[in-house]
């Protein structure tokens, strides 16, 4: 299989099929990233299209200096942040919710046959909690969390996407994990073991 960078260089040389291959390869992952970042199907789709159009335009000056995925996610992130800022400025930002602006179900499809009905309900409830918590995070923290746990990018690459230091990414991830368990920590009972003495 041709590498991403090979495909980009081929596109620079006029190989249109290379661009299509590359686009198909990242179409889904970038959409998933955007969908979870902006929390809206239609907006994510629009940013997705703009991201790949920018990729096409940037092909002329692309140089294989780093991972292609980092380059691509950086474009997507940049565009998404612009949209989020503008929406926030206009007060139209809608929360990440199980049902998006267009009424389509968000994120969860409970079609897995191996899940029992009660397990499906529990899974759905869990994901709703996760969505709610992620929504409460700052954009950069949410982006870092998605790239790390969904796209499985290393922190160094995430730092490049977000244009922050790797130590900042680690702090974002820690904050996100804290938030994910913070809801239950409210009911954290005093530790019954001697280990809890210092708490």
């Amino acid at each position, binding site marked *: 299989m041709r590498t991403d960078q090979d495909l980009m260089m081929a*596109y*620079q040389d*006029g190989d249109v099929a290379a*661009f299509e291959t590359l*686009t198909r390869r990242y*179409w*889904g992952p970038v959409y998933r990233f955007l*969908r*979870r970042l902006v929390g809206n*199907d239609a907006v*994510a*789709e629009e940013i997705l*299209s703009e991201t*790949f*159009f*920018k990729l*096409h*335009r*940037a092909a*002329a*000056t*692309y*140089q294989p200096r780093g991972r292609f995925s980092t*380059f691509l996610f*950086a474009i997507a992130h*940049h565009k998404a942040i612009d949209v989020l800022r503008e929406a926030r400025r206009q007060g139209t930002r809608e929360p990440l919710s199980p049902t998006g602006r267009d009424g*389509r179900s*968000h*994120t969860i*499809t409970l079609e897995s046959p191996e899940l029992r009905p009660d397990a499906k309900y529990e*899974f759905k409830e*869990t*994901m709703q*909690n*996760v969505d709610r*918590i992620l929504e409460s995070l700052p954009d950069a923290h949410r982006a870092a969390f998605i790239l*790390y*746990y*969904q796209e499985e990018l290393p*922190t160094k690459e995430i730092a490049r996407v977000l*244009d922050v*230091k790797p130590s900042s990414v*680690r702090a974002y*991830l*820690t904050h996100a*994990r*804290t938030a*994910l*368990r913070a809801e*239950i920590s409210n009911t*954290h009972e*005093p*530790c*019954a*073991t001697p*280990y*809890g*003495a*210092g*708490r």
Partner: protein
Amino acid sequence: MSITCEQCLAILDTPEEMVGEEAAMLMRAHLEACPSCSRAAERLEQRLRAFRTAPPPEPPPAALQRLLARVEADRAENAPIETARAGALRLGADVESASSPRAASRHGLRPWTLSRIFTPFFGSAKWWAPAIAAICLVVWLGVPAGGLRPKGGESSFDLLDVDLQAVLVRSNDASGGTEILPVFEGTHVLPGDGLIFRFVIEGGVHLMLIERDPNHDFRVIYQWTNLGTEQGVSRELEIADQDGGVLRYVPDGPPGEYTYIAVLAPVVLSTEAGQLDAIWGRYVETELSPLAEPAHSDFAIDSIRIRYLPDGRPERDDRDGGGMRGEYETP
């Protein structure tokens, strides 16, 4: 050795790959003995697992087809991508060929036409068309602004040989397609890099700083009108006096090659078609130097708004060598 709940949760909150073996072992030992922390760990793991395994919605296939069609149309409309690899023109290039849109396309560049750049700002061609001899001056400098990002030497900033003289822009033709000499070359800019533009200008001038981003999109990032008699008309340009100043700017586009061109242009103040008066700026010196003060500030990009006098005809101001004087402000 044991740890407290607080220490355990601190380890729990740290992404797995960043937890050392000893800390992980201490955490496991604590979790085995502490039901509360154990429940916290289980819930966190459950949520992470749900996040990782939830099948997200896929984008509709039609969106991909629309994108590919749009790209194809763009390819047909603009320069062939196959010739576009790092197509930087240098000052030493053959001026005549470089100034041709076709030649620019051969270099993978969309031509810098006056209509392309000026029309969105000055309206129809009749307002800028008589700007026959705009002085194009390429200035750029990049300096990683301190505190914004680690200095890793990743960006390169090349000072051009700015002995540009005045680049003649040929008079407009009926098609409205007079090109500006595309004098630029790639400078790799990473997000957070700060740029310093230092201008020393004599006389009245309208200064426009135009950015060409890695995607070949153009935009005017800064405008300043100096009539040679006013001081402090710009908040962004730190003006010592009317003779110029320093502009700090941080590109906010994607990483890649940015090009900046400073155009010292006549200002058309007349509102009547066919009546053209201009204030001419004269380039004296461009000085590019490393950023002395690493402090960073966000500079909003405002535009100069030019108001016309009530009767629509600006009064003359011969002190500027026959130029025009109108009201203007930086909003």
